[in-house]
């Protein structure tokens, strides 16, 4: 079975298979490569490299050749889940990481298009998060003073009810 990996956001495919005695084969393209990770030693074929790996769930942060990489294992299910989430246009997400300066609305509040609902600070610049349309606030996801990452949900508006 081949797995999907993202190396710094670009997609790559590779498989891993046992080769007996605790050894593994990496299946990449049409090739099979004997690989092993022994502490800080990465063996690939006949080559040995010093490597540092820190794993966070499905993400491996790898320091190799003097550079740091983020390699993410993307499970097949996660690919669909992500596509579904992106359809939710009622949620305003953070364009970049930052912190919340002020929250001007609470759940249940009526807002009109262009109304400033939240003020965030990113890269030392304040940005107003405005209502994209008239509606009702369903959820405020982050409180004043809190920080958030890029892509984090900030405010969700209640879906428009069909008349």
């Amino acid at each position, binding site marked *: *079975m*081949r*797995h999907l*990996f993202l*190396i*710094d956001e670009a997609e*790559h495919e*590779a*498989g*891993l*298979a*046992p*080769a*007996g005695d605790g050894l*593994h*084969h*990496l299946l*990449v393209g049409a090739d099979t*490569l004997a*690989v*092993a*990770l022994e502490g800080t030693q*990465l063996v*690939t074929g006949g*080559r040995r*490299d010093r*490597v*540092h*790996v*820190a*794993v*966070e769930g*499905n*993400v*491996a*942060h*790898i*320091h*190799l*050749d*003097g550079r*740091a*990489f*983020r*390699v993410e*294992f993307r*499970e097949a299910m996660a690919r669909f889940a992500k596509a579904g989430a992106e359809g939710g246009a009622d949620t305003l997400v953070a364009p*970049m*990481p*930052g*912190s919340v*300066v*002020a929250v001007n609305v609470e759940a249940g509040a009526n807002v009109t298009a262009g109304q400033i609902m939240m003020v965030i*600070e*990113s*890269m030392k610049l304040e940005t107003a998060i405005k209502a994209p349309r008239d509606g009702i606030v369903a959820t405020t996801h982050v409180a*004043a*003073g809190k*920080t958030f990452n*890029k892509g984090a949900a900030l405010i969700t508006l209640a879906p428009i009810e069909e008349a």
Partner: protein
Amino acid sequence: MTLSFPFDTVLVANRGEIALRILRTVRRLGLKGAIVYHAADKGAPAIAAADIAIEIKGVTPVAAFLDGAQIIAAAKAAGAGAIHPGYGFLSENAGFATMVAAAGIAFVGPLPDAIELMGDKVRARKFVADRGFPVAPSAIEDDDPATFNARARAVGTPLLIKPSAGGGGKGMRIVRDLALLDEEIERARSEGQRYFGDGRLYVERFVENPRHIEVQVMGDAHGNVVHLWERECSVQRRFQKVVEETPSPALTPEQRRDICETAAGIARAAHYRNAGTVEFIYGNGEFFFLEMNTRLQVEHPVTEEITGLDLVEVQLRVAAGEALPLTQGEVPSSGHAIELRIYAESPSRGFVPTTGRLLRLDWPEGPGIRVDAGIAAGQAVTTAFDPMLAKLIVHGATRGEAIARARKALAETVVLGCETNIAFLDRLLADAVFATGEVHTGTLDARPDLAAEPALDEGLRRRLLAAAALSIRPVRDAADRIPALHAAMGGWRN
């Protein structure tokens, strides 16, 4: 040297690497270190290093550090007789320095009037020019419209004409030939009129490919002032310094003496006390006063490396009323030092700040290598504060040795969990533009190739996939569930 300070506790009104660095000296001198902190920094090494830590609050973490009244209250609660402001935040706030003094606490920095003078860029420039020190020649039309063209001519070429009401580069014209001056003035006037509804102009000398060179000065309460040599800080991105070094590779020994003595003269004229930095713009063999920073600088360690002084110790002694520990002739300049700022940022995406939890942090060690870091593994990097994670400082007998040492140290630096500029710094140090020292403040903008991530070659791509596949649990577990024999038959593609 006596060790009797009129205070036994020093409050550090700062965070991160500089708080830790100040506390190190405070403790070494036998004083107690207190610190104020915001909850966003929970787990930071500076809090653990302090004898007393007092939480401060604010609408944002930065707002807490700008709340002078809260900080003075914390100093009183901690029994601190001195406040060290570090850099940024309230370090150059004359009102805060006044409040601290009024509370009977020693402010580790200059007197409020010096902060105020140098904080007003127009007043500072006039102060410096009036005392005969070099400022970039300029002419303001409003001063005397009738003589403007003649005064503009006296500025000399190349010169820059700007609309007085302008901004954003609109209506600005560079003049390299004085024969064209009158005609360019008329053109700039009509552009100013069109863009801003105001045709008044301002002319100043244009410095091409300017370098940013600054000089560390230190004064005491007894009228003594010394300079502690210069720092070259031309490698910048988004107007922020990335690499600093001393001595500057641009200056001849005579120019070095001139610029350093000019800085000391300016500080002396201002009756300056404590640590300060006089910044100059340098180009084509000429230098002009830019501004003076009335605080300890981020890049002060390179000065410490070549002089052997602990600048924070000198600051504390001066604040305690002691005289400077050395005269100008006794200030050494030994070898070459370089500082590299390690930022949580993505060079390939326009140097935008990055975030993440620091999963692994290995700093280099060895002779001539110093790391000033204020963050520990496990801490989260957020955008609440400045993206600088640490400073890597190297010292060598020569510039070449310092560069080689810096590259070796960078290769041993491991930061995982948050993207940094470490690999970019190595590409910069490896490039001929840095090796020759031919840098100016626009160098990084002119060389976007240095910021770009090199493409993954097939070998590296495979090694990364191997390391990831072997370490990510679900991938490894899935592989180990397949019997080796079955795998050998090639049944993995279903």
